[in-house]
């Protein structure tokens, strides 16, 4: 198991290296705004632009730039400095991370609880009114784009513009270190909006899995033993039906930790997603690199976590 994890971690490094290279190449191959011109202000003097280009190292060939970037990254864990405001990329990313983690963790708790709860009840009471209503709602939640749902939620519930002003609106994010209460209330609406489609997907997934599992032979055995139906469902049924959920949730959480771009943008939460969005607009390569690498890191790590977790969930899975 330890060997397996080490091997996988080495692959993580290779993968991140490839991701950084691809991001770099894409940035240079595809037309984007010239970072030097962007920084030079209005009606820039060509000499100033050239000077800025030299200062940022943009006058060197891309592979030299890439080599220098990687050298700083590997030797000093330095992600470079923003083209737009010279801020240290690493510092800014770590500043922004708590907001994204807050958003992700809250939403994940919400969608797991909702998804598993609703999915279970729907499967156990298949074709009941609850099941029909829940699955209908789930279909709507899956179909609704998160930015639309976010704007709609703001329009209905936000304290500033809402028809039923009960939640703080956009741009109200407060770090947990400042005020846990305000942190919590400011994130309630984003959590619900972000969790909606995930909860719906998970509810449907669990429902389908559980219905299938409940017709397995070992469920018949469990009933034949004279166990209560409750124990049959929870101890034997859900235990099996939930395994695909673990995979899906792990991967989804990995993606979200890399920044929920749409949700963070709609609610103006200063997280990684919002940072990535802004830096793409500004053609700020070091910042883009930083957010992309962070996103890739979370995805591959969560992949590894899911695979390792599987060995604990399913005794038939063993890594060597």
């Amino acid at each position, binding site marked *: 198991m330890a060997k397996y994890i080490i091997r996988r971690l080495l692959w993580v490094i290779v993968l991140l290296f490839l991701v950084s290279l691809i991001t770099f190449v894409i940035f240079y191959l595809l037309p984007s705004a010239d970072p030097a011109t962007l920084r030079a202000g209005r009606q820039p003097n060509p000499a100033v632009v050239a000077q800025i280009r030299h200062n940022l190292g943009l006058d060197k060939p891309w592979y030299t730039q890439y080599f220098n970037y990687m050298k700083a990254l590997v030797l000093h864990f330095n992600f470079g400095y923003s083209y737009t405001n010279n801020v240290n990329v690493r510092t800014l990313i770590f500043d922004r991370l708590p907001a994204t983690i807050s958003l992700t963790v809250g939403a994940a708790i919400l969608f797991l609880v909702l998804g598993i709860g609703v999915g279970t009840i729907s499967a156990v009471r298949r074709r009941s009114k609850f099941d029909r209503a829940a699955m209908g709602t789930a279909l709507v939640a899956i179909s609704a784009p998160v930015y639309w749902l976010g704007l709609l939620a703001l329009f209905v519930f936000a304290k500033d513009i809402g028809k039923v002003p009960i939640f703080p609106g956009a741009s109200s994010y407060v770090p947990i270190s400042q005020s846990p209460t305000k942190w919590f209330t400011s994130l309630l609406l984003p959590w619900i909006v972000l969790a909606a489609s995930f909860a719906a997907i998970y509810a449907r997934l669990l429902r389908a899995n559980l219905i299938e599992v409940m017709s397995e*032979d070992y469920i018949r055995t469990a009933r034949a033993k*004279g166990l209560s139906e409750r124990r049959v469902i929870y101890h034997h049924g859900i235990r099996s039906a939930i395994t695909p959920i673990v995979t899906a949730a792990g991967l989804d959480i990995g993606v979200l930790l890399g920044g929920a771009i749409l949700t963070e943008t709609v609610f103006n939460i200063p997280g990684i997603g919002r940072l990535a969005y802004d830096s793409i607009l500004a053609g700020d390569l070091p910042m883009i690199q930083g957010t992309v690498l962070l996103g890739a890191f979370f995805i591959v790590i969560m992949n590894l976590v899911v695979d390792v977790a599987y060995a604990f969930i399913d*005794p038939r899975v063993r890594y060597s």
Partner: protein
Amino acid sequence: MSTDQAPLLQVEDLKVEFKTDDGIVHAVDGISYSVKAGTTLGIVGESGSGKSVTSLTTMGLTRSRSTSVSGKILFEGKDLTTISADEIRHIRGNEIAMIFQDPLSSLHPFYKVGAQISEGILAHRSVSKAAARDRTIDLLEMVGIPDPHRRVDQYPHEFSGGMRQRAMIAMALANEPKLLIADEPTTALDVTVQAQILALIDDLQKRLGMAVIVITHDLGVVAQIADEIAVMYAGRIVEHTDTRRLFSAPQHPYTWGLLKSIPRLDSPRDEELVPIQGRPPSLVNRPSGCFFHPRCPYLLEDHKRIDPKLEPVPGDVDHQVACLLPDATRREIWQGLRAGKTPEELRALVEPPAATVAATTVPPDQGGGV
């Protein structure tokens, strides 16, 4: 077989129907049988003959809104078809236990074998977990699993097929049931392992004095351990007698078909096996008359209309058969079959006299290939 003893399980005119989108499935259609303590009943039939549904209904495992059950299943005088879900749950796995066909899919892949057995003990007995575990180890030893102290903490995938079925048997015996229902207990196993498992069931029955119902499509299995045998076809019992008589003097064309389609050590080396033509009938749209008539080589025109009752063979109250052929003709056909004649050759025995031939338009091979 002692006859003075009251039966442990008595099934009376049991009917089980499932409502489906295709129509009503008549899975079990008015069957009656009884089992006494210490005896073994074999229920034989093809898949879809209703043999598994009968036992699942006994366990209360077919209860649902789309199922309708009529008749009685009396277990120690209690009617299992009418008692509450809670009452039957206390009987299930406790007084009546069941083992299933495929031990791999019948064990939960995520839990240790020992835990799955202990769970059944803890469901019915108020004992400590440690006591349940000790009992589990004893059970594993009783069913012949070597090194039970180590095996108790292994997962099903670490067991071989035969060991898994032994574990299933241990699970079934955990609460010393009065009745053990074994549903195709050896079908998923190798032939040598089959024999071991059957010997184990037989041995445990003698030691524990249980009643056993063995459900199988394999006459070889019931020959080995059953005292009496009920042959089921399309949800009904078509022949019911003790094992010796069923093999020496079978009465129903379906039973003949089953017997002639398996190889026997005492048959001539060059004798060909004769499969039963056609397929089991749909239980939604069942054939008219005798349910077996579309596949019966000895079909007469009347048999398409008349539904035979399960009745004692003349002169033998312990041998019941549901067949429209005259008793003497049946005996002659079986003699012929035993002598190695084919059903086609023997059909002449049932052809009506020449005077009524005009009314019969059935060609000799009408019964074949549905």
